[in-house]
């Protein structure tokens, strides 16, 4: 029980054989599988990182595109507004010009009509004076004739107004 002999050496040999066998049959295959799984997980993680980077890049592109579109939209809107504004100003200007022209024409027409009416009235008055004078000179009808002529003159004037 308390003596050391050959069995110590046998136990050492047994332990060495056991350690080698356990390495070969247990640790090596299990580690191989675990390492392979870890390597696969690392590969998938790396792949995921690449995919994530690609997604980030796509997102950045999309955001840039969105920003460009927004800028383009803003420019188009600005241009359209400017065009509409120009068109509006042009239409208003044309309308004003036309209105001014119509007003001027109307004023001219009115002036011409007035002058013509005045000329006609003067002519009518002159004719009536001439006719009255002629009649007065011709039959000498007295106050009755004067009144009749006077009434005729007034009715003519009323008609010309």
């Amino acid at each position, binding site marked *: *029980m308390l003596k050391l002999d*050959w*069995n110590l050496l*046998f*136990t050492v040999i047994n332990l060495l*054989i056991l*350690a080698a*066998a*356990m390495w070969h049959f247990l640790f090596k295959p299990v580690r191989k599988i675990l390492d392979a799984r870890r390597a696969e997980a690392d590969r998938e993680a790396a792949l995921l990182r690449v995919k994530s980077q690609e997604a980030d890049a796509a997102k950045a592109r999309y955001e840039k595109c969105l920003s460009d579109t927004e800028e383009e939209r803003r420019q188009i809107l600005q241009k359209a507004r400017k065009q509409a504004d120009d068109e509006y100003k042009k239409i208003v200007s044309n309308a004003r010009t036309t209105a001014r022209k119509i007003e001027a024409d109307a004023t001219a027409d009115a002036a011409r009509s007035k002058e013509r009416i005045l000329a006609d009235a003067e002519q009518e008055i002159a004719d009536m004076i001439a006719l009255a004078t002629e009649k007065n000179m011709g039959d000498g009808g007295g106050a009755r004739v004067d009144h009749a002529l006077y009434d005729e003159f007034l009715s003519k004037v009323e008609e010309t107004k």
Partner: protein
Amino acid sequence: MDQLSEIINEELQVKTVFRIPIFGGIPVSESVVVTWIIMAVMILGAFLLTRNLKLHNISRRQAFVEWIVTKLTDLVEGMVGEKGRAFIPYLITVLLYVGLANIIGIFGFKSPTKDLNVTAALALMSIILVEAAGIYYLGMRKWLHKFTEPIAVVTPINILEVFTRPLSLCMRLFGNVLGAFVIMELIKTITHNILLPAVFCLYFDLFDGLLQAYVFVFLTSLYIREEIE
């Protein structure tokens, strides 16, 4: 009491199972033969558990073996440190072997750790591993210089430690297994019912056996860690 003494003496004797017929007949003891049985069980178990390992769609058997190896590796790595990863398979092997050797008495075999040759061999292997690790990681010069640290006057004590460490490892394991066995035999002799020895058997044969295996590996790991860090 004499009968008890006889039983204990009988149980503590390491019988020679057979002799190798060279150098006048080399005796092969019972502990070596039981160690072969334990080795056969461990190797067969490892072989059966690690057959057809797959990367995907693993079986329950594979999940179990992966779990047990990972857990034991983590346990031993926690003791030996990251630098001592190379020693983990050997330390786990010793843990399993000593654990099985301590509890094999339950199955009717004589525990190999009751033989001083076995515990001495384990301690010798551990200390060779510790010093070899020191030389490998530090280099011969630094390893020799370590004996003079922290001051030169303690060099003899440090050299003595090379021998006291394996001695303590060996005797601790041997003494604990022997003590547990003697106590169990005493309890079995004193009590006449089956319940009390069964309860104590759980502690002395199972718990203490596994605990001593853990302590042995823990101390070896600690010595290796001290040496390489």
